[in-house]
């Protein structure tokens, strides 16, 4: 397990973990992201987020950022659950040693306005640094989208674990679920124009080009 994969595994595990407690709703609700190698799918997409040049693979950068955020969380005494020995599938980094909820709180520092990165970006008015907040906010989106789409289905499987857990049958040609029409056709109903623009705005239009119309206040 590489550093990058292991850090993403800790992220995936925080968002879509194995949930033995859900067995009561059916055995299919127990497995989580790690059971379908979701971390690899998310690493792959993160690396493809930006196009090459001399850049390091972006997933490695993100993993390092998650560790930095974990340190920030600890230093700012926001971690509620302390550090644990990382699970077998995780990296040895600080992020992976946090509890599931603390990992998400650390992520929150990366994307939120009051985290160190956002504040530094603000202070130096640096869009490049600010992009960290965007990247961080994209991670839960990517994790949940990939998990609950068909992308993690094994070869030959028509439905992914996520689709099965949602009991989604997959794309269909159609459904005979029409119940009639609440309205058959819309009417060209009367309306009041309380405030009409003076016609000047529009007639100047014909002169072609140069005028200030509307005088809008914003």
């Amino acid at each position, binding site marked *: 397990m590489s550093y990058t994969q292991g850090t993403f595994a800790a992220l995936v595990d925080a968002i879509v973990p194995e949930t033995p407690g859900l067995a009561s709703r059916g055995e299919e609700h127990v497995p989580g992201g790690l059971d379908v190698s979701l971390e690899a799918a998310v690493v792959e997409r993160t690396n493809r987020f930006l196009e090459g040049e001399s850049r390091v693979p972006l997933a490695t950068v993100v993993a390092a950022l998650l560790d930095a955020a974990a340190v920030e969380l600890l230093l700012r005494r926001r971690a509620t659950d302390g550090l644990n020995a990382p699970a077998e599938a995780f990296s040895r980094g600080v992020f992976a040693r946090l509890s599931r909820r603390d990992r998400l709180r650390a992520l929150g520092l990366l994307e939120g306005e009051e985290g160190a990165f956002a504040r530094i970006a603000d202070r130096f008015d640096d*869009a490049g640094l600010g992009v960290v907040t965007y990247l961080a906010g994209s991670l839960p*989106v990517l994790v949940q989208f990939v998990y609950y789409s068909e992308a993690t289905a094994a070869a030959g499987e028509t439905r992914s674990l996520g689709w099965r857990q949602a009991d989604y049958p997959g*794309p*269909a040609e159609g*459904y005979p679920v029409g119940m009639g029409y609440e309205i058959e056709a819309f009417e060209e109903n009367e309306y009041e124009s309380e405030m009409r623009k003076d016609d000047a705005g529009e007639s100047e239009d014909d002169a072609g080009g140069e005028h200030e119309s509307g005088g809008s206040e914003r």
Partner: protein
Amino acid sequence: MRERETDVVVVGAGGDGPALAWRLGQLGVDVTILEAGPFYGNERWAAPNDAPGGESSTDPGDLSGERYDEQFTAREGEMNDPVAGKLRWGPADAERSPWQRAIPQQAVITQVAGVGGTTQHYYGNHPRAFVPAIDEQPHWPIDYDQLVPYYQRLEAVHPIEPAPTTPKAAVFFEGARRAGYERTDGYNVTSEGYRPFPNAILQPDERLMGDGGERDGESAGGEGESATDEYRYPDYEGDTLAAHEHQGGPHPRGAPVRERARRSSNVSLVPRALDTGHVEIRPNAFATQVLTAGGPGPVAATGVEFRDTWAGTVERVHADAVVLAAGCIETPRLWLNSGLPDDGWVGKGLTTHWFDFVAGVFDSATTETLVGQPAVEPHQGQAAGARVDVPGAGGIAVNTFAPGLTATTMYAAGQGEWSFDRDTAGEPWDTCGRLAGRELKERMADYRRTLTLICHTDDRPRQANGVSVDESTTDEHGPVPLVEWEPHPDDDARRDDLAVRAAEILREAGATHVHRADAAPILLHMQSSMAMGKVLDAGCEAHDVDRLFVADHSALPNGVGGANPTHSGQALALRTAERMAERYFGGVDEPLGGA
């Protein structure tokens, strides 16, 4: 360098560009549309994500329903994955990464490259602007009246009709009635009320329309079941209620492109534009410069320079007029990268409808009583077919998705603290914010019993919000756009109002659990970054550059009240085509808007 000449060059074959091109073509003006992304469903690009294919398309005979069926699989990962999906903001070449933007904040941006633009995965929702948003807000230099003939034209041709009621819509209507909303029946919205969505989706075949009684809700050809030929063209015409709008909306299978039910611009307007015999569409062509003549002093646009996204070669098209229809982000980027004058409003005033989402979970007994089935079944019926209008605040609509997109919008794209760190005591929702762990998996296990609603806020244009360029980050098309958008406290208040109303509608319908996403900025309805009345005159020609027009949603002066914007964007584009013809191409004999 290859150089060519035509009457008008349009940048972008998205939602609005083809509307303008169609009207100009009808008036006998020759138009070349440059489109950055691929052309799906066209015989000249058999494998649009693997190889360069043909160069351009002028013949409606090139359109191919067979290719459309091959390419648009309706699987959400394959179609909508923001990095690797077919419907993404990036080049046709599947091997390559998406195109870059500098976004220094938590946000999601959804725009799609390719012929049809972002309408390739839109829901076909086509309400007119709310009347007071045009006539009472201070932004529009023209009256609502003046848009009506153009709306009417689109309503006739797409066509746009009331969405059929489906079980999820019926649940929503019932909640809205119990919450005290009355039904409104008109196109022109001035007051609160509920109604079916005016949708640019062909009405379904009668055989899919029951009487509201017992239904087995069985799908045909679902992947889990044996595929059948049911619900295919020509046996079935019109919508099949498959709910795949977001995944490309390719139904009914087997139909010619122009007879697909969901009327994205590539299905509805592009074929009409090609029919005129005056329109050429060149995909895989990324415009990088607006060419000008004159100056110092007045300048005039004379053409466009673009880069072939496969070959990397640079070409030019010279024209008597240039139209930017590249969308709210790329139109100002192209403007700024071309060194055109900036009056302080170029790229600014961006509105986004400051989205939020509210979901309700229903017991089987409740939906049995309301609609005679044990679940909501969000994956059946039009994705968005029912709405409540709240002029002044915005709108609330049923908005349903396949599971990946449901998780993303409802449970992953929130701002601020995760749900487990929030106290919702006394709030109208049981949970709020992003979900993770067991809570997330439970909510997703409830997917089929969940009704998801979207809140579209009537956010107002502000100069601090919008698009500039990030000079420090350059891709092969120049400095990349820098996008910044923050809600004003007034916009927050409107959004809160809508979220409370949405929760009330769900509760009144009988939801047992209500969740509010508290979404981070989701930029998917974008308007007003090159506003008419600011950067543009009342004919949508640039104040500071002659012969340069804008015909995409950036030209809208505001967020049209929170109504879905495409009807207004396309109506304005038709009007702009007539203004162009009046000013530079010999006039219009029978303008739609009257002489």
